[in-house]
């Protein structure tokens, strides 16, 4: 994920929030649970203390009596962690009573370690007990006897905190698990939310890439309300850009075409004049003419290539060209043969195909003795993108092996004896390339040149 992205920002915020909130929530839940557990433990101790005190008072007189039923079986199990003690205070002799579980052991009393009484005169603390037990102790003072003989006794109950600790640690373990799980869950949800929420933007990105690649001319699709205005603006911008380009292209075309007539005048004016100036004019006008042709073709090529949805029937183009060429070369008695399945379609502009086939067929007619043949067929290459192959050949002199090996060059004429600008093959090569196709020159079995075009098919 790119650091400078909306997705990252949203994800980072969600992550930070999760990382802060989940531990805080965990701490709060843990504290509440602990308070609850401890206070429930304390309630139990207070209850036991109340019972023991009442029992002791009931069975005693001036001295504390031994409580009969403390209501807790663990008081009778040795070192169970649950104990009670009744002990005379103020260093006066008196009866000391302890639970069976305590036997000969003892535990420090809160009053002895300086804990001051709280509510209900109870003193609460935590002390070490026998066997390294940690005990929660509650102690109250009680006077046994009357008047001056009255003696102050400490009645205390102690309960081990082991259970509480166990419960707390098991709770916190489960709590951490649950929180971690929900944290991970939240992150996944956030990730999904970000992906789903930003999906339209991704769509826009793809559409823009398609526009740049020339596969689309506008931003299509139903976009959410937040970016729909952006879409509308972008489309308007694209439209105006296309209009500007179109206008510029039209102007270039008009300029180039407008130049052709004056060029014709110049060329012909200089033709009969033997002066060096006329020679220079002839030479330069020839250059200008080639340039005009070249850039007109370029401008047109850029305009047309890559616009989706255009398909062209190869058959109708080759038939129209054959009709025209047969008329142009009718004196030559050429046998112009077209072998092309009617359903074969080129994925591209009609004009491009016309230019490519027109130039190649015209060349073939120019050089042929009597036969020109065009064979077109589909090349199934197994993938989604099919190609078609067009072979144009003649029975003329053809090209030598070296000439066939040479790359196609602009303005390079392989034979100067026939009219032509030398732009024919280079235009075809450029057009083929611009249409994701290829062009090559081979030797024909008819004896002359064979040109081979491979172009994308529908």
């Amino acid at each position: 994920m790119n650091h400078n992205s909306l997705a990252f920002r949203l994800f980072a915020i969600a992550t930070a929030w999760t990382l802060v909130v989940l531990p805080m929530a965990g701490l709060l839940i843990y504290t509440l649970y602990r308070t609850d557990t401890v206070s429930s433990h304390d309630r139990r101790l207070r209850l036991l203390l109340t019972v023991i005190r009442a029992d002791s008072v009931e069975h005693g007189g001036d001295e504390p009596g031994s409580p009969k039923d403390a209501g807790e079986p663990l008081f009778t199990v040795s070192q169970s962690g649950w104990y009670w003690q009744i002990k005379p205070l103020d260093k006066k002799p008196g009866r000391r009573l302890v639970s069976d579980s305590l036997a000969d052991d003892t535990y420090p009393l809160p009053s002895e370690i300086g804990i001051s009484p709280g509510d209900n005169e109870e003193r609460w603390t935590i002390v070490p007990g026998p066997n390294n037990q940690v005990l929660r102790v509650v102690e109250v003072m009680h006077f046994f006897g009357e008047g001056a003989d009255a003696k102050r006794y400490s009645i205390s109950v102690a309960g081990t905190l082991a259970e509480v600790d166990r419960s707390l640690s098991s709770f916190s373990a489960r709590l951490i698990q649950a929180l971690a799980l929900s944290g991970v869950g939240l992150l996944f949800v956030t990730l999904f939310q970000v992906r789903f929420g930003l999906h339209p933007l991704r769509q826009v990105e793809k559409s823009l890439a398609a526009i740049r690649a020339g596969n689309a001319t506008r931003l299509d699709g139903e976009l959410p309300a937040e970016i729909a205005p952006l879409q509308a603006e972008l489309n308007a911008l694209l439209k105006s850009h296309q209009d500007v380009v179109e206008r510029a292209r039209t102007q270039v075309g008009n300029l180039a075409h407008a130049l052709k007539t004056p060029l014709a005048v110049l060329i012909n004016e200089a033709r009969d004049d033997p002066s060096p100036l006329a020679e220079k004019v002839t030479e330069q006008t020839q250059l200008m003419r080639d340039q005009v042709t070249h850039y007109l073709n370029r401008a047109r090529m850029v305009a047309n290539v890559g616009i989706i949805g255009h398909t062209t029937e190869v058959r109708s183009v080759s038939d129209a060209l054959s009709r025209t060429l047969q008329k142009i070369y009718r004196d030559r008695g050429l046998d112009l043969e077209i072998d092309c399945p009617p359903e074969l379609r080129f994925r591209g502009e009609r004009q491009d195909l016309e230019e490519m086939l027109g130039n190649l067929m015209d060349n073939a007619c120019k050089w042929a003795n009597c036969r020109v043949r065009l064979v077109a067929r589909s090349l199934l290459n197994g993938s989604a993108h099919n190609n078609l192959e067009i072979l144009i050949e003649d029975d003329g002199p053809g090209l030598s092996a070296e000439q066939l090996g040479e790359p196609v060059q602009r303005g390079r004429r392989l034979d100067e004896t026939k009219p032509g600008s030398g732009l024919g093959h280079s235009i075809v090569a450029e057009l083929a390339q611009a249409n994701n196709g290829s062009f090559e020159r081979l030797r024909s079995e008819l004896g002359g040149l064979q040109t081979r075009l491979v172009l994308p098919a529908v």
Partner: protein
Amino acid sequence: MRALVVEDDKNLNRQLVEALTDAGFAVDSASDGEEGFFLGETEPYDVVVLDIGLPKMDGLSVLEQWRRQDKKMPVILLTARDRWSDKVSGMDAGADDYLAKPFHMEELLARVRAQVRRASGHAKSEIECGTLRLDTKTARVTVDGQPVKLTSHEYRLLAYLLHHNGRVVSRTELVEHLYEQDFDRDSNTIEVFIGRLRKKIPPEMIVTIRGLGYRLSPDGNES
């Protein structure tokens, strides 16, 4: 041989007229489509050089209307638009040839001559009749290999007869095909030129068919 030039650019129009005149044609010219159409409709031209981009009426419409009226003279289209689709639509509209601007005048003249020859049924650029020989490329006339010097009107007359040799050519037809539109026509001048021609080539070759016209014959036979 009469030629019509329809071209709106004044300079190019002038050059075309000059070049065609030099090549032995009687040339008329028009600078817009309507005028061109009218001339082509009313005058019997042997060849037309027609620009496509014309004011008032474009060249393709002019051509289509001529063809609809069964005007069969050869038409060579001139155009700045040289895409193949333009060529196809030009030829489909009834053109006989197509030349993209800018062009060399020699190229145009070669095509004009080729169209004239084809229209009169001659495949080669040299037309022969017995010992008489016309090279249409160079406008040279020879008898037995010896060059014959001709004035432009004499050349036009002989070239027309040679292009149509084997058939009788009426005096009216000759007048119609030898002079520009605004030329002061007098059919008597034809007789004068025939007389002059008979002094430069074997006289029996031009046979006078009474009441009909003239016929070129290699041996002087009337049929």
